[in-house]
């Protein structure tokens, strides 16, 4: 196993160095960087599967880092996340082979290859880190590599501010992690994660709560939970699409990894309010995430907001699991955690798929604005089918993969009545309502996303001239679409690995029972057989045409224009737009959107009966950003201005500062 890890890292290193050396020939850099990344990710998949099946290794390289050296190891949970990463990384590298061709003229593919391979290597290594310093270094490497990837198209104004927000938020999160880790290390007397679980219950209340909150904040900001999500809808769309796929599909999952580690492993079983807090934040993230996605008409930003929503759904499972664990119901905790982790894998597949679909559209039409798309299903049939599979999966419709994990999440929430605490029950009831509303709204949102982008007539010249994308991009999307179907109809493959990983964490067998064709939660409480649903649907779908033939149905089909009340002119301007589709939602949830309406009509100077231009703006505002971040930003600005007093430019004064700082430190450390 160690050899597999070394091989994967070697491939990533080869990709990074190879693309650097081929710097002057962008085509070669593209092929080298992405091919080696593909190899590396494939080996990482093997490593993850071996680990998930029970293989382990521990390795310490002493002097590479201070305090404990580089410590790496693998257990079933780490291995599961390595699989998730590989599942996102393999298609992403394949996709990048074709997709990054457009960057050859304008951008440095050498730098991109370096950052891409470094990003992949860091992500694969993060779940393997076994002590604080290793973890933090890899975590920061991952953040920096992704930052450089986000900044690829730095000539665009949006990208610059997106990168800035990303950098600030990710480092705020990093600071929380750093302080939390150090607090915990001091309390536990060890920097090695393996020692923490045993001593954690003995640590005093306040310190343990503080550690939990700090780590939850740090990991939460990486996962993109509301209100720490603001970087996500900015940075993800700004990056090249294969990187967006990786960031949204995979990187934010490492935040989930951290939270699972904190809640179930490092801090052992905590008080119930930890789980409760996670549940509440998760429910809010899910609902607000999907609501913001609904009114978003930039396809990639829409997908980014959906990541916030799906992180919410994942954390509903994780939070419920923590709650069950505190109430000493480990079997149910296992069920809930399996639901959350399963959704993690599923989200990695369908969100990567959708981002690649959005990338393909961007490639073909040069726009991310849905109002300029339309009719793409006829021009890009492959992309359309793949995007549809992704949409149906993310809308959690049977028999695709999003459904099975959301179904498990629902079961775990419904089973909460076994807890006998009114407060906990209330939180669970509201979580059920929140999840239900989220899934309904997500379905609506993806009807908008698919329907407006792919169906009806093209709304712009760009959309009319769109062409299907090349083979590698289609292959990458097809791979992920197949994964969506496979994880949906054959959940036993995933559950087999998850069941073991989770029961190690919760310390008891889980409440999920499954055979090759069905999944059962809590014995007879609930059962589902996605395989049979798929088989029955296909069988009925093929039986109905036969039935119609037998019944003697007329088989003639005549094509004619769309019915428009006999109107002569039929253009794309008669179509329903994304704005129109989302408008009823905007009105129903007006309280959250606070929509701003502006109507600006310019009349003809001669007569008010003739209109020159009409401009209509109806935007939804982000109340969170206005209420929470603007005051913070102003405070930071205010403090920064005050701090300028310290900067005199006089070197003697600076030396004095250094001296004072040293003195203070010496006194503190004594």
């Amino acid at each position, binding site marked *: 196993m160690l050899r597999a890890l070394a091989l994967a890292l070697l491939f990533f290193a080869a990709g990074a160095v190879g693309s650097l050396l081929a710097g002057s020939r962008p085509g070669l850099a593209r092929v080298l960087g992405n091919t080696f990344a593909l190899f590396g990710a494939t080996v990482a998949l093997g490593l993850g599967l071996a680990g998930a099946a029970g293989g382990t290794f521990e390795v310490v390289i002493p002097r590479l880092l201070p305090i404990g050296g580089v410590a790496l190891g693998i257990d079933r949970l780490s291995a599961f996340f390595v699989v998730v990463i590989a599942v996102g990384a393999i298609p992403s590298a394949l996709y990048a082979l074709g997709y990054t061709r457009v960057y050859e003229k304008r951008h440095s593919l050498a730098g991109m290859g370096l950052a891409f391979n470094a990003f992949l290597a860091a992500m694969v290594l993060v779940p393997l880190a076994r002590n604080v310093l290793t973890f933090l270094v890899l975590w920061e490497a991952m953040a920096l590599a992704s930052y450089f990837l986000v900044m690829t198209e730095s000539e665009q104004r949006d990208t610059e501010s997106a990168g800035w927000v990303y950098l600030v938020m990710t480092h705020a999160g990093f600071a929380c992690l750093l302080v939390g880790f150090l607090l915990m290390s001091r309390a536990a007397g060890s920097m090695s994660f393996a020692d923490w679980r045993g001593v954690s219950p003995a640590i005093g209340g306040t310190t343990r709560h503080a550690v939990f909150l700090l780590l939850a904040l740090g990991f939460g900001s990486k996962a993109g939970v509301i209100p720490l999500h603001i970087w996500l809808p900015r940075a993800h769309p700004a990056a090249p699409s294969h990187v967006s796929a990786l960031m949204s599909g995979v990187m934010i999952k490492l935040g989930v990894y951290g939270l699972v580690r904190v809640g179930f492993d490092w801090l052992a079983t905590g008080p119930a309010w930890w789980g409760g807090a996670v549940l509440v934040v998760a429910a809010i993230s899910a609902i607000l995430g999907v609501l913001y996605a609904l009114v978003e008409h930039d396809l990639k930003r829409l997908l980014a907001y959906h990541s916030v929503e799906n992180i919410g759904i994942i954390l509903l499972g994780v939070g419920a699991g923590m709650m069950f664990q505190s109430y000493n119901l480990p079997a149910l905790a296992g069920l809930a955690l399996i639901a959350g982790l399963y959704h993690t894998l599923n989200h990695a597949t369908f969100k990567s798929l959708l981002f690649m679909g959005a990338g393909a559209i961007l490639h073909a039409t040069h726009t991310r604005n849905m109002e300029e798309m339309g009719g793409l*299903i006829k021009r890009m049939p492959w992309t*359309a089918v793949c995007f549809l599979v992704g949409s*149906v999966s993310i809308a*959690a*419709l*049977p028999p695709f993969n999003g459904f099975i994990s959301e*179904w498990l999440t629902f*079961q775990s929430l419904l089973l909460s*009545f076994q807890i006998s605490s009114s407060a906990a029950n209330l939180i669970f*009831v509201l979580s*059920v*309502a929140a999840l*239900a*509303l989220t*899934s*309904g*709204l997500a*379905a*609506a949102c993806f*009807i908008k996303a698919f*329907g407006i982008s792919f*169906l*009806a*007539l093209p709304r712009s010249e760009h959309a009319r001239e769109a062409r299907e994308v090349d083979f590698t991009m289609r292959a990458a999307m097809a791979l992920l679409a197949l994964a969506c179907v496979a994880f949906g109809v054959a959940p036993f493959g995933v559950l087999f690995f998850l069941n073991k990983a989770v029961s190690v964490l919760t310390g008891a067998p889980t409440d999920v029972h499954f055979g090759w064709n*069905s999944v059962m939660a809590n014995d*007879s*409480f609930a*059962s*589902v057989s996605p395989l049979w*649903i798929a088989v*029955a*649907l296909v069988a*009925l*779908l093929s039986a*109905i*045409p036969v039935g*119609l033939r037998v019944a003697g*149905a*007329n*088989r003639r*089909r*005549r*094509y*004619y*224009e*769309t*019915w*428009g009340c006999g109107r002569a002119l039929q253009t794309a301007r*008669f*179509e*329903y*737009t994304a704005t*129109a*589709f*989302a*408008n*009823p*939602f905007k*009105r*129903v949830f007006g309280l959250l959107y606070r929509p701003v309406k502006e109507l600006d009509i310019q009349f003809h100077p001669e007569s008010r009966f003739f209109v020159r231009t009409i401009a209509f703006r109806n935007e939804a505002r982000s109340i969170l950003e206005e209420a929470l971040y603007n005051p913070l930003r102003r405070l930071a600005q205010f403090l920064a201005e005050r701090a300028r007093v310290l900067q005199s430019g006089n070197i003697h004064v600076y030396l004095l500062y250094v001296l004072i700082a040293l003195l203070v430190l010496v006194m503190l450390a004594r």
Partner: protein
Amino acid sequence: MLTKILIEVIQLLVVALGAPLLLGLLRKLKARLQGRRGASVLQPYRDLRKLLAKEAVVSENTSWIFRFTPYLLAAVMLLASLLLPILTTHTPLGFIGNIIVLMYLFLLATFFLALAGLDAGSAFGGMGSSREMVIAALAEPTVMIAIFAIALRVGSTSLDEIVRRGTTESLLLLNPGHLLAFIALFVVALAETGRLPVDNPATHLELTMIHEAMVLEYSGRHLALVEWAAAMKLLLFLVLLSNLFFPWGVAATSTPGALGLAFVALGAKVSALAAIIALLETSLAKLRLFLVPELLSGSLTLALLAVLSFFFVR
């Protein structure tokens, strides 16, 4: 094994063939309440036969989604008829999915219907899709909370198990939470099947349409399938409501006598629910679209009360 297959075939036929009859009955009842003679109860069959014999005019803007959707709608409804306990508490294919699966199957159908509404590029279709999804999304929490209320009392979300517990422990039916959950689900059933006061199935005015606006482009066999599926959905919801909340007469064994009795009981219960719907539709006006959320949040409140009553009473 043969009995099992037979039961499933009977269930399929009950839903497939009974759905138009239910629609005919509902229309006949409404006509009578409005002081009209009304069409024969067999009229929906005649309509379907006619539609099957006609050619299909398809918009040239549409893609395969538009042509695929009618088949999917019908297939989903037929699949639902296989896993719902319609006549017996031992549905052979009941293990395929519990009540949540059933609701998500309906959502799958709605999803594709809404896509089909957008496919032709007409403003009506888009409007219908958008509105349908507002209602579907807002109905979803009520559905799940009502399911929660049922699961609390029965300790299971398996459809068979819920009905079985209802037949054996009749005291369960007297629970106040039970009634609240019933009303909540009834409102949702009206909203999901496009009945008044949410949607007017008999409207001719495009601007007030929801379901009708999405299917405005369908004709011939496609329209036949869409209408058939809509009728089946209505029947499935009424069967669900009557068997979940009033499981009287549902067969516990698979003898012909018990099944026959179950069939008669089902007919009576569904007819009674149809009569209630007919009465409501005669005495109610359609709600404005932006008042529908209030109606649905009202039903959500009832469902929440149903759940909370369990926690307080226990």
